[in-house]
């Protein structure tokens, strides 16, 4: 589903590469956690996957799309196949919960009828039923993040990338978000999650990839965070 072959990204030659010949392979329906200190290269990795940046070298193939052959004008089509959740939610402040989720469908030309049918179902999955009319500032951090997740999955992507989705949340809300991600993964979506959160990693018991100084330091199944130290 996700294939990286010796991928490097260098922003500034004097500082050395942010990612240094990373190779990894993620199977369909896998749940993968990427951990690492700040500056280890987690965010760079995700920005390469969403094509916000190009790798300096190496090959990326996601869901059969070879990034070398991807033209700039086809980037939107790629992004429609990948759901992304950000640490800072990136919700539109002047739209309510329903409208924020509907927005992802509107921009790809889905009709209003289908939107009215689909959005409530997805809000149900992320446990936000009944909060359709709330504005983002009326929600807790955890709720906002679940709106963002709903928006990311409403188009039924095969891959969901979550960049520190619990970074701004207290433990209880963080766990709500993680449970939603697990649920989505059970429905068959490949999930790639980056986090610092030790509890999250230890409770999930999933494949953990540790990045250190831009390299893969370890890649183990059913791992604990503590074991990395």
């Amino acid at each position: 589903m996700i294939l990286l072959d010796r991928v490097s990204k260098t922003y500034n030659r004097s500082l050395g590469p942010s990612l240094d010949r990373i190779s990894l392979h993620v199977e369909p329906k896998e749940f993968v956690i990427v951990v690492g200190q700040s500056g280890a290269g987690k965010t760079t990795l995700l920005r390469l996957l969403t094509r916000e940046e190009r790798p300096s070298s190496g090959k990326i193939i996601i869901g059969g799309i070879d990034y070398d052959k991807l033209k700039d004008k086809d980037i939107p089509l790629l992004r429609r196949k990948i759901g992304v959740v950000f640490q800072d939610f990136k919700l539109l402040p002047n739209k309510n919960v329903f409208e924020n989720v509907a927005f992802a469908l509107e921009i790809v030309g889905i009709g209003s009828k289908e939107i009215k049918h689909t959005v409530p179902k997805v809000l149900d999955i992320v446990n936000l039923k009944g909060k359709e009319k709330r504005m983002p500032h009326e929600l807790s951090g955890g709720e906002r993040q679940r709106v963002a997740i709903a928006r990311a999955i409403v188009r039924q992507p095969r891959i969901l990338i979550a960049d520190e989705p619990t970074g701004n949340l207290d433990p209880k809300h963080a766990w709500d978000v993680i449970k939603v991600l697990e649920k989505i993964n059970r429905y068959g979506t490949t999930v790639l999650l980056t986090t610092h959160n030790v509890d999250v990693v230890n409770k999930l018991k999933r494949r953990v990839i540790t990045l250190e100084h831009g390299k893969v330091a370890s890649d183990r199944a059913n791992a604990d965070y503590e074991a990395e130290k």
Partner: protein
Amino acid sequence: MTSRSVNLKRKWITFLRIIHTGMVNFLRNISLAVAAIAVMVVTLTILLFSLIANETFSNTIVQITNKIDISIYLKDSNSEEQNKTLVQQVDNLPNVRGTEYLSKADALERYISQNTGNEALLSAVNQTDNPIPATILVKPADLDKIEDIRQFLARPEVAALQSDEPSYSGDRKEAIDKISDATNTLQRIGVLAVIVFTVICALIIFNTIQMAIFNRRDEITIMRLLGAKTSYIRGPFIVESIIYGILSAVISVLIINSAFLASNNALQASSLGLLDIAYASEYFTENFLKLFGLQLVAGILIGMVSSIIATRRYLKFKVK
């Protein structure tokens, strides 16, 4: 439904959403838009005024040209045959639009009708002793080229048939020259002003769009990350500028219209200097749809081209 028709339907929905978003953004953004619209109104008003003035001057020139003619006075001793041959010859000259032959009797009648009320002049002529010569009235096609006709009339064999020097209505020629000079100058000023204001207009639209893009940068980032196509992000800005164009066209037509109303009511004037207001007003009314359409096209074009350039400049779509 086939995937092709689903695709078409989605494109159509997207198109409608772009227009809707453009209109919503226009309303949200109206304080920013005022400057752009104001300048566009000035631009379009100048354009419209130039068009009407140009048309009016051309009309005035045609009017005066129609009145101008060359009169050839014929000797009483000429035979009817000689006169007819001369008319034929003059008629065949390249720069002659038309001729009219007045026999002595016709010429007298015309003289009397032209001088009705002037007893002194009328008493000098009467049917029995007609002093008025037979006359050929010549309408030249191009007033700047009457030299050919002049030369022909000066030939000895032609001059021999004439009782007097031909008359050229010279004072009218001067008036025509004046008006056509004014028309040329006005055309040049009009074209220049339209160009200058179009450029200013484009720059202000650039600025307006730059501000709008800055105000909506978060929204644009999110749209991009969610996979919105460039055209979907860009479209509303272009729709917004097209609305500027439509509004400006309407306002400029209203301005010109009320200017005509005001001048008709207040001045009761039929002309303002060289400009024949009555005709201009009539031309505007009769060609209203055509002129309004032209204003719309010009406004939409200015808005569209400026916003296409501005969004290309300020919305960066390149991936590093």
